[in-house]
């Protein structure tokens, strides 16, 4: 963030907050208008999270906030004081890849790579949601509430429909997620 601009904004139009990003706490002074995605990309240099549409219509910006997958382009950072954020850069342990990253590599589940961090973060969220029994539109209405939902092809297709891929890697993404479930 440019300190010069912050200084020229009215006092009430900026805020100070703390964010824990990929395990590390950051003390931030921000223009209230800044979206989480732009904090990550422009403020912290974490450009793994992508801006495809900036309006919640493509999923390329998907990150995990307090463990849940969300569109970071639609979250005002100022409202997230104290939140835990995990981006694609924070998934692996050290130099090791997260199993979802491994699965995407194994299945060639991407081409241009631009939607990929969002697909991967979304998949991490999907695996957790399914394990906790969160239903989707593809879930049998009689599936017992709260029981883990098996990730069939139909479940994966529906649950990952909030992540557009213009290269059309969907078939390989479905196979990657199947490998994990």
């Amino acid at each position: 963030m440019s300190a010069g601009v912050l200084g020229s904004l009215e006092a009430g139009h900026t805020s100070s907050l703390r964010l824990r990003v990929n395990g590390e706490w950051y003390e931030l002074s921000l223009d209230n208008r800044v979206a989480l995605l732009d904090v990550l990309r422009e403020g912290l240099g974490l450009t793994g999270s992508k801006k495809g549409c900036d309006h919640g219509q493509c999923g390329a910006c998907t990150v995990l906030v307090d463990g849940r997958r969300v569109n970071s382009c639609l979250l005002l950072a100022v409202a997230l004081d104290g939140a835990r954020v995990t981006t694609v850069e924070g998934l692996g342990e050290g130099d090791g890849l997260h199993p979802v990253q491994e699965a995407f590599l194994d299945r060639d589940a991407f081409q241009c790579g631009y939607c990929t961090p969002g697909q991967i973060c979304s998949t991490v969220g999907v695996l957790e949601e399914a394990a906790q029994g969160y239903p989707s539109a593809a879930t049998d209405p009689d599936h017992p509430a709260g029981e883990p939902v098996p990730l069939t092809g139909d479940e994966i297709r529906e649950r990952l429909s909030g992540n557009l891929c213009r290269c059309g890697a969907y078939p390989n993404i479905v196979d990657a997620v199947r490998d994990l479930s």
Partner: protein
Amino acid sequence: MRTFTYVRAADAAEAARAHGGRDGSRYLAGGTNLVDLMKQGVETPDTLVDITRLPLDTVAEEADGALRIGALVRNSDLAAHPAVRVRHPAVSEALLAGASGQLRNAATTGGNLLQRTRCVYFQDLSMPCNKREPGTGCAAREGVHRDHAVLGHSPACVATHPSDLAVALAAADAEVQTTGPAGERVIPVAEFHRLPGELPERDTVLEPGEIITAVRLPAPLDGTRSTYRKVRDRASYAFALVSVAAQLTQRGDGAAEQVRIAFGGLAPRPWRARRAETELTGQALTEERVTAALDAELAAAEPLRDNVFKIGLARDLARTVLLGLTRP
């Protein structure tokens, strides 16, 4: 997006004070629609009152079996709630038919009802739009309007309301609970959204500064079945062309004891098909009778040049859904 003052409220009273009922104040909950519109310059608040830390994020069961859903319960949590899954499948299905997994994790119950139309002219500052800028005219009436309303519209505005949840809640006779400068009040979901008339800029009956605290979902009669079905241009992650929520309770002889139908995608608000409901109540639901009742309901439709298809689509969709709810 213009600069704004951010206020984080701890309770409803503090939120109301910060908002002050002023034109330039907006409440921020999930933000999935408000932030989108602020980026486009459609919404230009000078004060944003963050209500996400208000204690309105639980679902409670009342003595009569009704569910009191806090306004800040996330769409994904509500869709997964065991009581909603079992007793109100239409509500769960409507939520899961909307948006994407990511958006449902952020979007709230109250915010869902307050989302604005997705009319492309409303979202484009360079276009005339009476809803966004009263008096500028309606570009959609003669423009690109395949997705627009066939019922309840006015010369000033032909936009539809985009919520799936609201349609299912309207069919369930749910109520919106609010608190505001005039105290607390209860508004049926089916009457929560306004028809545009000459004031299309007002989407709902909420007064300035009034805040949704909960949605009350009454317990259905024993043996009630319900479902939600949505038709759209792609298989997921798209707004409805037409959707229907239906709820049916049958008597021992199979006749309809209670039938409720609400349409999405047809009107500026969830469209309760009360005429069709009246015609079908007490009757056995045969294909002919259902078709006739729906035709009677939809006879009032006034389609635009390019959306006449919605009438037949709504009828055929609702007929299949209703017949699918009947016990064999």
